[in-house]
């Protein structure tokens, strides 16, 4: 992905900023400028909304056939996480034995390295999810 495209979404990627529609209260991730439910009446009423980072595994997979830039991680786990706010997010699962991952497992967002633009290129950071014990 181009560096510029990546950088434009750093607030969402570093701090889980999404949007909340002031008309209907629905929360979205990442940022949306229009609420698909309220459409025209939501224009100008979409507020920045930071997710708590806490959620549960809705589904997951362990990736064995990984793209070259992620090959060093394989096998690695990726999940769709249902956040406590009700919105879902996709991210990797880390700090966990792969055999212990299950649907419904509590997780929380942590800031990690997502990748880089080659050995001399910039490093991309963003959220992954690690197990939550509570």
């Amino acid at each position, binding site marked *: 992905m181009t560096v510029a495209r*990546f950088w434009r979404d750093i607030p969402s990627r570093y701090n889980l900023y999404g949007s909340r529609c002031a008309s209907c209260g629905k929360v979205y991730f990442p940022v949306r400028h229009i609420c698909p439910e309220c459409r025209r009446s939501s224009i100008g009423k979409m507020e920045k909304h930071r997710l708590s980072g806490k959620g549960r595994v809705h589904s997951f997979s362990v990736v*064995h056939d990984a*793209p070259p830039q992620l090959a060093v991680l394989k096998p690695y786990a990726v999940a769709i996480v249902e956040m406590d706010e009700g919105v879902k997010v996709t991210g990797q699962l880390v700090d966990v034995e792969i055999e212990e991952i299950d649907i419904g497992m509590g997780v929380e967002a942590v800031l990690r390295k997502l990748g880089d633009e080659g050995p001399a290129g910039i490093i991309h950071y963003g959220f992954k999810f690690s197990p939550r014990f509570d």
Partner: protein
Amino acid sequence: MYIGNMSSGRFIDQHHIGALIADYSGMASHNVPSTRIEAAGASGSLAFRQGVMAVASGMHDVVVVGGAEKMTDVSDDASNFILNSAADQQWESMMGATFASLHAMIAQRYMHEGYATREQIAQVAVKSHLHGALNPKAQFQKPIKLETVLRSPTVAEPLTMFDCSPISDGAAAVVLCPLETAHEYTDKPVKVLGTGQASDTLALYQRPDICSFEATKVASRMAYDIAGVGPDGIDLVEIHDDYTISELLALEDMGFFPRGEAGKAVESGETEIGGRLPVNTSGGLKARGNPIGATGVAQIVELVTQLRGDADKRQVKGASTGMAQSIGGTGSTAVITIMGVV
């Protein structure tokens, strides 16, 4: 001309593929207009739908719909990288999700809900290869065993290599014209009874339910309404089995089976040639091959071949109505076509 193509720009460094195909098919010298259509995996079927609309509206008298993809000029890694771009690059691919792993997450949740077993999902590939073995134009023409699917290398758990459609080169084309003039061009015309198209969120995670593609449901309803038939009136189906799990979702979303019943139907042979509802008699994306832009058009070619009674060993006896389902991304675009004998 309408040309379905996903990514000739990245696969072979050639954009403007509409003009190229018009040129080398001899049409450019006659100044025939040519338009390239892109909707990832649904590019071909969407090109076909554009062609149908062009003829149905009276804008054009004769339309050639083609689909093509040349995927093997680049390495497998490069090819997969290009295919991943059908997903949400920012919020899926960049987060480490591959296209296969998105479908694997669908499968994982689908099994968690008790809708199908791992073996039932794998059986889809066994059935596709069984049919592919009867299609002289299929990329893979050998039957496989269930164990082959289950024991092949894991791509993204729980899916293995044999749950995934292959990287393919291929092309397909059909000619469309008003039914009244069809006999000027062919002795065996086949009629387009209805088409439907629908969109959904680009990213899978944005959906309330990942075990169903709403776009398939909506597009199917649209096509059924136009055609004036329902699931009971369909004799055979071509389905977008880019991954085995996708076929089970489609069979349920198109209304052929209630949720949680598609896996059992596949397991019991109901979707084989000779069964209640033959599915992917061509071998499907899995065995016929999945040259992305050509795939949707190849589905139409299979329906036409079957409805003409020209499908030889894989002929569905007495087939009079066929249906095709095509998907771009993880259910972000769905295109449905229903065809019948004249």
